[in-house]
């Protein structure tokens, strides 16, 4: 009989990461393991000290852990990520990042600017590989194992609130789709499709997403796209082609919302109410 669910995570501490310190991850990792109490987890990492931390946490929280040794430079997406980075230069949008700083835009390209500016090319490539490369790892793990469901979980995912409908441990997956939470970050003012921290799906969905994702990554490189690319950017682009492949678990616009929205629109009150609500 197939086992139900396998979680997959990773942690590479990249020296010189201008956005997150080693301590940031080490502070969040215990809570992430605690959330996964009693679950099966494959954990990709490189350094011996991270392996030791993971093993100790697994023991403490009764997580059935498999460590997978993977140097970041041997990650299947590392070479492509480095190529992609050749077009993503700190000066591209710095003036806009500075101008809109503090206005709370949550715009991906601007958000990445500080990080990009304060990182060496090779360091930024490695950090990006960590986020961008999760679908390749999921694809690999789903090919090697026989679980019904595979969940990606960021090592720092414990910073998310997981109460109520957002508790992914209790999610009943919508078949045929990557089940995810909504992202607050935006691409040219439009919300990204998915938050990349927790993503769940059946093996065939991961294989399908991986194919689309890799094709998009190659197009991104061949067209010399200058926009920073991360997992969330590629999932948003994938969702534009295949919306059926994504299912958001956040509470949605209900029938009641739709009816009220229709009434407001019919009465031509949209502009008035928007202004009233400031």
């Amino acid at each position, binding site marked *: 009989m197939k086992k139900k669910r396998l979680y997959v995570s990773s942690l590479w501490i990249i020296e010189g990461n201008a956005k997150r310190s080693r301590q940031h991850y080490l502070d969040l990792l215990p809570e992430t393991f605690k959330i996964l109490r009693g679950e099966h987890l494959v954990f990709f990492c490189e350094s011996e000290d991270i392996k030791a931390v993971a093993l100790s946490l697994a023991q403490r929280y009764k997580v059935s852990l498999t460590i997978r040794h993977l140097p970041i430079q041997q990650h299947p997406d590392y070479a492509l990520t480095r190529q992609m980075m050749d077009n993503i230069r700190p*000066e591209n949008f710095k*003036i*806009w990042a500075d101008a809109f700083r503090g206005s709370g835009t949550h715009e991906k390209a601007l958000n990445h600017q500080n990080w990009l500016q304060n990182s060496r090319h090779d360091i930024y490539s490695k950090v990006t590989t960590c986020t961008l490369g999760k679908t390749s790892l999921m694809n690999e793990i789903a090919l090697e194992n026989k679980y019904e469901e595979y969940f990606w979980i960021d090592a720092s995912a414990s910073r998310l609130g997981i109460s109520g409908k957002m508790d992914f441990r209790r999610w009943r997956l919508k078949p045929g789709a990557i089940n995810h939470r909504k992202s607050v970050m935006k691409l040219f*003012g439009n919300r990204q499709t998915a938050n990349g921290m927790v993503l769940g799906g059946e093996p065939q969905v991961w294989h399908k997403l991986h194919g689309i994702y890799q094709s998009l990554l190659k197009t991104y490189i061949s067209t010399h*796209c*200058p926009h920073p690319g991360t997992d969330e950017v590629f999932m948003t682009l994938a969702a534009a082609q295949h919306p059926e492949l994504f299912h958001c678990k956040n509470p949605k*616009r209900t029938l009641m*919302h739709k009816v009220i929205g229709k009434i407001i629109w019919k009465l031509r009150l949209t502009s008035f109410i928007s*202004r009233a609500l400031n």
Partner: protein
Amino acid sequence: MPPKRLYISALCIVEGNLKRSPEHYFHHLEPTLNMMRGGSLMFFYESAEILSRVTAVAEKYEINFLPQKLNFEDHPDYERAKTLAQRACDFRMDVFADAFPELTSNEKGFNQYFKFLNRGENLQAYGKQLVCTIGKYSLIKRAMAKYDFEELYWVDVSASRFNHKRKNFDFSKISIRKDAIHHYSSSQKIFGQTQKVQGSVLFGNRRAWTSFAELYDEIFEEYVRSGCIYPATDEPLMTLCHLKKPELFERVDLERRTLLHKAVGKLLSPFRKNLLIAMDQY
């Protein structure tokens, strides 16, 4: 008493303008000049044909017509415009434009890159088009150096395309309220943020224009130096000016939040989130 107000405009037909045909400009020229009836207009042009067509319309509306020949190559901002045009060729956002086609209308950089610059294929014509928009402030400076009008109104020849489409569209009826550049609002966006200023009609007194020109020039230079590849026109540069010195700008089409708006807003505030979700604005 000498007239206080000078309108300033320009028309250069760029061969290879992929977005606007010459007829687009001539179609809107007459109603635009109609709004300046009886006023003074300094007009920058390149070809004799344009001069003769505009002269005829100006005569029809009894405009004190002050033509001024200006070749693209002699425009003081031509070199900087060419640099920005060249740099905009790197704005290769094809994957985003394919995924979200509406960006090519809504988002300034996409609009410029895909519709005007044609993915870098139309570089030469784009450089010329760009100097027409990005270099308006230099023409205002020339007007201030040549004439001593107190109020200066920049008006695009196609400004009448907004007639009846925006509040207070008839700029000739709006008086200058303070030492600021008076402008309409824009619907286009930069990284999803609405541009602060629309460039078709801009007006202010000499003091405001002098302060504005100094700031704009500084921002323009900074933009060129920065190596930014986001395609910029006058509007993104004015947005940067606005973010730096908002007090230098005065919006003339503002729909004010009245007492009624405020009262209704207060009543609805407990339902704010649900109402925004209902209106698909959350």
